[in-house]
């Protein structure tokens, strides 16, 4: 028994050196070669960092495309979903009010065109994307507020749409931050 205890202690120490020091530090060093130097890829506007390409942020003004509802208000110091169950009455009221808000700010919008992602909170609360349909229903509003043609906005949405992986796997998505920065750069 005593033998096992001593072996356990020594083995644990050796493995800590291998697994907790050598392994993670090598990966961190290799990560310096990646975009964002292993600290997350940042996006700048006029030379100033305005966000991370992978992290959604809050857009509420009508001249911007809006992202998805977030349970943490896009505060990236934490992350969480709403954890609301599908039949929770408070939750259903919340969804209804999100639908009403969308309809109010997008007068031409038909209810049946609203995609689920625009009225439901994401899993992380930091979802950087919306669906293609989620962008499509906002084009008219953004174009009108910015006083530019819908065609122009549609073009930008198309440019900022990420197609399925290799054209085959998974859904397509639109990065809200990149799209909005492209709008500001017009």
């Amino acid at each position: 028994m005593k033998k096992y205890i001593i072996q356990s202690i020594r083995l644990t120490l050796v493995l800590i050196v291998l697994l907790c020091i050598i392994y993670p530090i090598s990966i961190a060093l290799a990560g310096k070669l990646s975009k964002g130097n292993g600290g997350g890829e940042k996006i700048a506007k006029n030379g100033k960092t305005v966000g991370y390409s992978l992290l959604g942020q809050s857009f509420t003004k009508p001249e911007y495309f809006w992202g998805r509802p977030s349970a943490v208000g896009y505060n990236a110091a934490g992350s969480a979903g709403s954890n609301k169950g599908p039949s929770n009455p408070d939750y259903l009221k919340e969804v209804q009010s999100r639908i009403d808000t969308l309809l109010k700010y997008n007068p031409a919008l038909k209810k049946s065109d609203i995609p689920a992602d625009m009225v439901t909170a994401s899993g992380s609360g930091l979802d950087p994307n919306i669906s293609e349909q989620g962008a499509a229903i906002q084009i008219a509003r953004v174009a009108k507020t910015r006083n530019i043609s819908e065609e122009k906005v549609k073009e930008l949405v198309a440019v900022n749409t990420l197609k399925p992986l290799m054209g085959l796997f998974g859904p397509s998505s639109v990065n809200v931050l990149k799209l909005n920065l492209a709008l500001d750069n017009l």
Partner: protein
Amino acid sequence: MNTELIGIIATFLLTLVIAIPLGKYLAKVFAGEKVWTDFLKPLENGIYKLSGINIKEQMNWKQQLKALLTINILWLVYGFFVLIFQDKLPFNPDGNPGMTPDLAFNTIISFVANCNLQHYSGESGVSYLTQQFVLMFLQFVSAATGIAAAVVLFKAFRDKTTTQLGNFWEFFVRAITRLLLPLSIVMALILTFNGTPASYDGKDQFVSVQGDTVNVSRGPAAQLIAIKHLGTNGGGYFGANSAHPFENPSYLTNMVEMIAQVIIPIAMIIAFGYFIRRKKLAWTIFGVMTIGLFMLMIPTLSSELGGNPALAKMGISQATGAMEGKEVRFGPAATAYWSTLTTVISTGSVNGMHDSTMPLTGLWQLLAMMINGFYGGCGVGLLNYFIYLIIAVFISGLMVGRTPEFLGHKVEAREIKIAAIITLLSPFLILAGTAISSYVFTNHGDAAWAVQPKAWLNNPGFHGFSEMLYEVTSSNANNGSGFEGLGDNNVFWNVLTGVIIFLGRFLPIIGPVAIAGLLGAKKFIPESAGTLKTDTKTFALMTFAVILVLNALSYFPALALGPLAEYFTQLR
């Protein structure tokens, strides 16, 4: 067919393409045959030398378990104190506080047990030191513990009669050097170059386009996320686990993470067959498990892709499926696929919030964790399934009126007693745990704990009951996912689930290893016309029936009160 479905089919096929050769490789590694990774031998010999280990020393099953338990208890003590004092130790750039004793108790058991139930949030609950020196460390060694325990079982059935089951330390170290560490390096690099942070930079701050000041938690995440999946651990670096865009930046990384968490459990089954030179048995087991997986996955997909009926009534479009708690870059199909994988295997990582899935999806998630043997966790999945096999052998033996045998060894009263105790343990822990928590919730709502019992549940009615049932089930299965709406960081849940995780981990390791050790030491009976063959379709069906009947009888009432009741209410 749409790209979301093609995506998950491709993922499953890729999984098999990697897992099957990996299984053959593992059989050779643990049998000590020549493999291409033998260049790592000097590293291993160095580890043995520094640790004072002589791998020539053979152990019987009792010595194997003693070694296993000794080192696991050491980790419990070590980790507990580091977690409590993390605020006073270095590498805490975000200035996070030390854990309360009950939270540390829960967290350390959870990580030693390969469960990774988390009652803290990675961003605010742990330091960089604890993330790497305790949590990530345990993700490696707890997976290696499970694999080594399974190899002890392999050894018991390789030779006709034996009590010499090899050296535990050798299996354990090789599981790390030949499997977990190399794969983790590859996967961590893939993640890093797709956007997951890997550096030691602390929190960042920026002013957003609309002028909000936003803090961003970062840190060495890629290293941990790799082993979290490969080792079927599941404990995330960030609170939102693999739904977090940093943990899982794209559909590509999502595929990688879905593949990574299944390859070792599948490979272990294949390795078992090649190791004991009974390939057909391995394929039979694999067949039963895969059918089980599909029987849970297909209805899950159908219930998630169908969307939430309550939202459908509001008149919006759910073209791709239910989206609450899900991320756009994965879509409902890949999230549903993941939710089945992570519950049949004991990973418990999530890429979407299970609490917000449809009632029937919750039912399949719960059932998957209750069965806990379709592939299952790293090594321990096979151990769990072994118990089902022994019960199936016993019942078949009774049906045909013969002494039950397994792989040429008589299965007698002692082995059956152990198997029965292990089988009964799960329903006991799950049902008693849920009953106690329901009682406390209804009768002691005002107890002065960090979260008062009356405030535990994030959702009313049947769904609230499911939140408690899920927490306990996940603990017993060493799964670690949760219906995260549950207010679980308080002394009641920390202690209750800590105890359940501990029992649900170590008894189901001790039981099968003991049975295997006892069987392996018995006289070998050559196969004859009267032998019950365990690698036939008939026996596969028998095992499946045993799994179904045992679990249905144990859990139907609890499931009826939770997800089923919610489902039928929704239909109304």
